[in-house]
């Protein structure tokens, strides 16, 4: 290219090619774009606008379930002596109690605010779900990993799985509830005593699939220890699977708690399930339907939000989406 042509382009000297010296030290370095796993996870996660909306909803739910009861102390029997407050639908409640956050969902059988009752119940249900998920996932992933790696453990655990998996879950829970009382920690115990088995089995299958892949075989041939293979080669691969599993586990505990309460084996506290169970008769009473549908709707919203956040986080934590 002639000098005139370059002048026509109007480029500065910095923009043009120039000679550089050969650097022995620099040529030894391998350069690649900086890659941080978790940064990429969040970058992919927040790229979807729907996730911001869902996260906001999750934030609101957490605020109402955990911070709101701290500010406003809820007493279900505060209005017991005021019969005029019983079983009001929202419009009546607003006209009797005035427009406030307590009256927007009406009142229940004891004159209590449905809105407050729901968030009080949500706190119990969400806590139960998180505690159970944390325990089951930890135990399940650890045991599942060992189960997948060791052939001896596999034979034994498959037998255990076949036996325990066939004992009706309801039976386990009801025996636990009868042995102790229907308290929060009993429920956690009942839901976790065999709950980890399913997760462990799932993880085991995943481990078995990845275990014998070529890159692990190569690792093994190069003398990497099994523990190092598990932590460095397989665990990163499993992150998205674990997060996705967690996403369906947490809502499932809330659903399960609702189910157990409905069949009369639930918590003694007024959890979401207990609220739905105790308001069941209201569903067929004209004018009282709101008492039933509000906890049903809120519990559905909570579970859907938790599920979607988890699923999308699971998608984002899959390294294949980071490109």
């Amino acid at each position: 290219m002639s000098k005139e042509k370059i002048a026509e382009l109007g480029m500065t000297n910095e923009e043009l090619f120039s000679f550089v010296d050969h650097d022995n030290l620099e040529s030894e370095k391998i350069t690649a774009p900086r890659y941080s796993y978790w940064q990429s996870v969040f970058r992919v996660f927040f790229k979807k606008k729907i996730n911001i909306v869902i996260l906001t909803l999750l934030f609101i739910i957490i605020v109402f379930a955990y911070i709101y009861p701290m500010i406003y102390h809820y007493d279900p029997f505060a209005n017991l002596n005021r019969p005029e407050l019983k079983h009001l639908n929202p419009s009546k409640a607003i006209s009797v109690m005035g427009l406030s956050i307590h009256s927007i969902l009406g009142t229940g059988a004891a004159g209590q605010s449905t809105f407050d009752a729901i968030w009080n119940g949500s706190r119990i249900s969400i806590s139960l779900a998180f505690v159970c998920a944390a325990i089951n996932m930890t135990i399940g992933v650890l045991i599942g990993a060992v189960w997948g790696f060791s052939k001896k453990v596999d034979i034994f655990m498959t037998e255990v799985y076949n036996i325990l998996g066939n004992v009706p879950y309801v039976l386990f829970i009801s025996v636990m509830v009868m042995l102790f009382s229907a308290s929060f920690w009993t429920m956690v115990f009942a839901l976790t005593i065999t709950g980890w088995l399913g997760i462990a089995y799932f993880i085991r299958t995943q481990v078995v699939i990845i275990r014998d892949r070529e890159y692990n075989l190569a690792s093994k041939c190069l003398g990497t220890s099994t523990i190092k293979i598990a932590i460095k080669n397989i665990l990163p691969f499993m992150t998205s699977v674990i997060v996705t599993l967690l996403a369906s586990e947490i809502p499932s505990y809330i659903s399960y708690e609702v189910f157990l309460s409905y069949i009369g084996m639930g918590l003694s506290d007024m959890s979401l399930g207990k609220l739905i169970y105790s308001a069941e008769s209201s569903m067929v009473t004209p004018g009282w339907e709101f008492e039933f549908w509000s906890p049903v709707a809120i519990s559905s919203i909570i579970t859907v939000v938790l599920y979607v956040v988890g699923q999308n986080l699971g998608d984002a934590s899959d390294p294949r989406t980071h490109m």
Partner: protein
Amino acid sequence: MTKYLLKRLLHGLFSVVAVVALVMMLIYSLMDRNLIFANDPQYTKLNNNIKKIYQYQQWKSYGYIEYDNYDDFISRLHSAGEISDSDYETAKKLGRDATKDSATTKKYVQMFTDYYDDLGWDVTRLNAISYGGNRIASGGDPKLVASRDIPLLKRLWDYFTGLVKIDDINYASEISGERGLTFTLHDPLYNGSFSPAIIGNGTEHKYLLYLDSQFPYIHQNIIQIKLGTSYSVKKGVDVFDNITTRQGSYVMKEVTFPTGLTEMSADDLHTAKYIKGSQNATSINSARFVDDYTNVDTYKSSMSRIGFSFVIGIISVIIAYLIGIPVGVIMARKKDKLIDKIGTVYVIFIIAVPSLAYIFLFKAIGGKLGLPTTFITERLTTTMYILPIISLSLPSIASLMRWLRRYMIDQMNSDYVKFARSGGLTENEIFTKHILKNAAIPIIHGIPGSILGSLTGAIITERVYVVPGAGNLLTTAINSYDNGVIVGITLFYAMLSIISIILGDILMATVDPRISYTTKSR
């Protein structure tokens, strides 16, 4: 293959035994056995020793313990003729405590104690409880009892040996005529028209094999399955009978009884069972029957528990496959298009929302549309089935859609798909002939499970729509501490789940020749 299946079956049987053992341990050892008295009005009325005796009796009925008391022991000896009338009268009377027994009583108390000590039972003497001087408080009479917890192994052994009962001709204790089986071509119940039957004399059932107009037309009473006797759910009835006998209102028709008496009745004379001395026990029986085979079942208008559960379950399974598979295929083909997104929203809704919530939602919607929302066994209409079927098929459709879509998308990047495409096959051909066939294999594995699973019934759906099905039996039994029913139902569930896994494996190997369970040389 046969050898492999046999091995799997044996393995399954072992699991079933272990499951039953575990459940027995849970309910008989771990659970507080005093809970059965929590809602017992009888228990609160009783006092002192009588209360303790009542406790023992109830525990025996619920299957926790083996129990005997001195009074029954003595009267058994008496009726066996091992104790004279005069001795019996004195031996019956226990002293206020062990030191106050008469000599005769002491002898028999010793006999009782020795007998049960040898068996390893606990013998307990409950001394008289008196108030004031010599007056015995109400229910405070002295008692002597022996009891022990049934050991798990004995319990298991008894349970599994009693599982299948074969009728034999020495069942009835007193019988007129000769014991034996007779084959007749002309069932006496049909007034001499052709109808083959095997009739037993001395057996528990009168008719061991017979034909009638009810499905499946040929019936047998030779082999009876005994899953466990109920105590509180349906007293004295076996779980198997409980879920398989018909329900609803009586179907009356003209029945000619063995004596020749003809009247309107719902009795099904083919089900006649032996009860000792029952022919002359009531005037009705003596007018109707010529022997002690008087215990008959009745014709009822509607299906059994398991029948209702199965009809609702199987229809919803069929609907689920009919809808779920095509929609799953379309979702995979139109990945990331509108239809896929709508389907995904539906799947998320069903997975995340508590099942109770959407069942009630659909009940409310159905009610607004004018569909009946409760089951009335007496006045059954087809429309009553619609809502339960819908609410049962909703989650199955969602899970079929979800998994089929997943499997198909996983297959879409395979080499054989690229090859087929480069070979010039149309997308339709690729999807229906290649991808679907490969993606459907894990789905096919689940088919036997979903069919057999519909026998167990659905807890929430049946509760919400008041369906008289089998789904609620387990929860009802747990709530009323009916241990026999709990064990029986658990065995039933475990058997079904093991059979469905094995059937699934067979089916999978049948449709996919690449799958083989026997190691053969390649």
